[in-house]
């Protein structure tokens, strides 16, 4: 403070002014009685002092020292492995709670400002630790710990105490879990719960089987069985189909991982689901992972074909000779020798036969309806035929007076499968007919590659079945020169294929007045091509559905990949692909998303309720069906973290990365000493200004009021 300080100058001036004011006041009241004069002078002096203080506004500084409990965050892992392990005795969670709520650590925590947190999708703050919290599935230790540490508001904790077994379902390496946690600046002290010994459990880790086998073929199912913690216990492996035990193997004790080979014989053609189940003699954590299934498709041993012929006729005689000549083709021929439906087997010695005698259609690669009317087959068989095509079979309808519309096929389920339209009442067209090769279908290309040219030059055919043109997705292979009516057409329906031949006298290319070597070669090329197209193996599917494994755990995020190609097996990228799912959850349809891989689509979904699901992938392009594929998937109960042994190394890594410490739960008492639990102290300085208080203001008013009132009463002007 110096002389130039305005406050000093102001104080001096005020003091002089106050002295002058008191002197003037004394001059006015000096005649009054002495007591009154003393009161009035005292009041005036007080008033002037108060005014002077108000003008100068002096400040008073005071310093305090405060202490408060240390804020501590306690995070308790409530994942499935904490809540449900071990399977017998006290759970890891209960052990953790006991350590936190009793003993020296509990005493230490009571001196702190504890914030209790449970791991959830992130974390959940609770007032106190619940007795039995809901186990947390899909746990992620790093994510759960990051959420509370990443506090942007409020006071940061002095430390975090994590009580966990260190296991989560990400199964990340310790360094990955601890990664980045140190950046939050809060030391994490870890108490490790549970044993790091393997959890006693038997599981089938994997099953390998061939995708496709032939009927009657011997094949192997190779299984990898894990007996963690049960190395000294034998395991029984049972192979089943449709609830029927096929084989039982005993896997001798000795190792945790045991390999088993189940030899089986392929049954009837179709899809077969084989179930493998492992049984342990000792108690294990869960039986949900003891069963696995695999689907194997059984193909007919030979390229079997059913030929249903409407009547003995020259076209049939020629075709039958070809049928019996084709190598590796096993035809079953039913020839109708009397109407309406007396069928004979005709592939060898003639013998009475029947439609039912051919057995299940799925045993055959193709069915040929050669000039046979729908009524002769019966509605039930017609329905079976349509289902057979939709399920992946190949069907051909050959012309004649009992085929297509003339054969009563319009409006039937089979008509929907054919590549040509059939209208009721469509009969036969009788006129000389020459044909020409058309289109770029697989069969048309095969015919071109056969070297046959000038199809138009072939002997005239004498008529054809009237059809209403090509159906959506159908492709013409041969057509009439006049009118471009389809003579041979191919198409797809469902997972299968269909073919139509609308003429019935191609034998004229073999034997007629104008037949020659060229026409005979054309006949041979046509029908060899047709038969080859019909009995081509199903592996040439344009749509392939791949679900990876055929067993998913409930709640698991699963992927279904769908591969789509054109007829030349080139990947297609402009298709529309959908996945239909039918299972215990009901029916669902998912639109597949194209991936970066050309021709590959993907559907990501979450496995629902346990049970069997049928997945059907369907691909279309420009409204045209390209094909479909189907697979069965079994959803089993989730095993979750039931097999997770404790991972103290994860907790050690977290403690190290954050500057905390790790101790096993048995040493929880020591943790009380390690934690930074000393109360926090803080010095505070308070600045007081009495003249800025209401009390000062009131005192000023009262003094001034009293001065004014007494002056008036005692007659002072």
């Amino acid at each position, binding site marked *: 403070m110096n002389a130039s300080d305005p406050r000093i100058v102001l104080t001096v001036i005020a003091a002089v002014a106050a002295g002058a004011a008191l002197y003037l006041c004394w001059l006015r009241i000096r005649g009054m009685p002495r007591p009154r004069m003393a009161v009035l002078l005292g009041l005036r002096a007080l008033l002037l002092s108060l005014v002077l203080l108000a003008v100068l506004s002096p400040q008073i500084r005071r310093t305090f020292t405060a202490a408060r409990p240390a804020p501590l965050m306690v995070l308790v892992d409530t994942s499935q492995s904490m809540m449900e392990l071990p399977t017998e005795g006290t759970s890891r969670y209960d052990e953790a709670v006991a350590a936190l709520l009793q003993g020296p650590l509990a005493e230490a925590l009571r001196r702190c400002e504890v914030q209790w947190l449970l791991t959830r999708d992130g974390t959940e703050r609770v007032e106190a630790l619940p007795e039995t919290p809901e186990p947390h599935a899909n746990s992620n230790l790093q994510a759960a710990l990051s959420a509370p540490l990443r506090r942007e508001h409020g006071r940061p904790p002095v430390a975090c105490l994590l009580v966990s077994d260190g296991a989560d379902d990400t199964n990340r390496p310790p360094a990955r879990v601890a990664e980045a946690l140190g950046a939050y600046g809060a030391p994490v002290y870890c108490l490790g719960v549970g044993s790091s010994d393997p959890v006693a459990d038997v599981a089938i880790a994997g099953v390998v089987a061939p995708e496709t086998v032939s009927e009657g073929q011997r094949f192997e199912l190779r299984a990898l069985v894990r007996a963690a913690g049960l190395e000294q216990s034998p395991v029984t492996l049972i192979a089943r189909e449709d609830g029927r035990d096929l084989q039982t193997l005993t896997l001798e004790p000795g190792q945790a991982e045991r390999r088993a080979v189940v030899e089986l014989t392929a049954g009837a053609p179709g899809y077969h689901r084989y179930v493998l189940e492992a049984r342990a003699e000792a108690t294990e954590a869960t039986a949900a992972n003891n069963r696995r299934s695999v689907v194997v498709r059984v193909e007919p041993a030979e390229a079997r074909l059913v030929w249903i012929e409407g009547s*003995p*006729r020259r076209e049939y005689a020629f075709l039958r000779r070809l049928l019996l000549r084709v190598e590796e083709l096993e035809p079953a021929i039913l020839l109708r*020798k009397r109407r309406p439906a007396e069928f004979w087997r005709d592939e060898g*010695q003639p013998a009475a036969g029947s439609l039912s005698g051919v057995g299940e259609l799925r045993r055959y690669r193709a069915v040929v309806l050669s000039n046979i009317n729908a009524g002769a087959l019966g509605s039930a068989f017609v329905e079976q035929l349509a289902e057979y095509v939709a399920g992946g079979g190949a069907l051909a309808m050959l012309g004649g007076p009992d085929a297509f519309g003339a054969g009563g096929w319009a409006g039937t389920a089979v008509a929907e499968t054919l590549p040509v339209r059939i209208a009721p009442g469509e*009969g*036969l067209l*009788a*006129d000389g007919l020459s044909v020409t090769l058309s289109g770029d279908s697989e069969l048309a290309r095969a015919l071109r590659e056969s070297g046959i040219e000038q199809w138009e030059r072939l002997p005239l055919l004498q008529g054809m079945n009237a059809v209403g043109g090509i159906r959506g997705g159908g492709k013409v292979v041969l057509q009439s020169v006049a009118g471009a009516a389809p003579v041979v057409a191919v198409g797809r329906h469902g997972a299968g294929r269909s073919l139509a031949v609308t003429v019935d006298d191609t034998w004229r290319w*073999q*034997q007629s007045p104008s037949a020659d070597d060229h026409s005979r070669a054309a006949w041979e090329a046509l029908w060899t091509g047709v038969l080859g197209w019909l009995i081509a193996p199903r592996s040439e599917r344009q749509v392939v559905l791949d679900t990876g494994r055929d067993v998913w755990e409930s709640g698991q995020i699963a992927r279904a990949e769908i591969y789509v190609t054109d007829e030349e097996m080139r990947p297609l990228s402009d298709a529309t692909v959908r996945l239909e799912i039918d299972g215990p959850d009901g029916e669902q349809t998912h639109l597949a998303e194209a991936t970066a891989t050309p021709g590959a689509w993907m559907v990501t979904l979450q496995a629902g309720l346990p049970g069997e699901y049928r997945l059907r992938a369907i691909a279309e392009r420009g409204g045209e069906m390209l094909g479909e594929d189907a697979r069965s998937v079994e959803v089993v109960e989730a095993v979750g973290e039931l097999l997770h042994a404790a991972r103290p190394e994860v907790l050690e890594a977290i403690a190290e990365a954050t500057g905390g410490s790790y101790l096993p739960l048995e040493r929880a008492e020591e943790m009380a000493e390690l934690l930074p639990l000393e109360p926090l102290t803080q010095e505070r300085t308070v600045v007081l200004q009495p003249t800025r208080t209401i009390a000062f203001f009131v005192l000023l008013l009262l003094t001034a009021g009293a001065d004014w009132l007494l002056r008036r009463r005692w007659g002072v002007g």
Partner: protein
Amino acid sequence: MRKLAIITISLAFVLASAACAEEAVGRLKYGGGGDWYANPTSLPNLLAFAREHANLDLPQREVTVEPGSRDLHSFSFVHLTGHGRISFTPAEARNLREYLLGGGFLHVDDNYGLDESFRIAVREVFPDRDLIELPFSHPIYHCLFSFPGGLPKIHEHDGGPPHGYGIVHEGRVVLFYSHNTDLGDGWESAEVHSNPEEVRRQALRMGTNLLVYALSR
């Protein structure tokens, strides 16, 4: 436009004729002086019987065809009968052979007295093949009606059992020769030879088997 063309053509042709679907049956008009035209009612009767008792699309009557004609190749089934001499020119023999090996079928029925001449003539057609007697188990005797004892005996002729011979090509009988039975007589109308009805029926059944065999093998 394309659809319109199809419809137009369809209307023009619809149900024009079913003739194209019928199997052509011929009678072989051979040379040598034999009565190739014998048993005139036989084939119409057989065709009628076969249409009635089997699921065959057959014409009302047969068509006469010469062995050297290219038209021969249009026929699904050709019948040859007679009592006398038969001969083929080399061109006829070649055409007949080509027809049979190409998928045709010839039934030769000895109407009595044809055997010696036919066996010589068939050598002209198939110099490298022999007529072999077919076993009773052959499909030709069982493909619709069953003849466990082989050919039925229709006429006595020289007595003795009837014989069925065949020329076989790639497992298929392309020529069937019925000897010492006279199936054609059995196919004739009842008043022609006064055969018992059962005998006629047996002949017609065997003839139907020949047609079924020819149209399915």
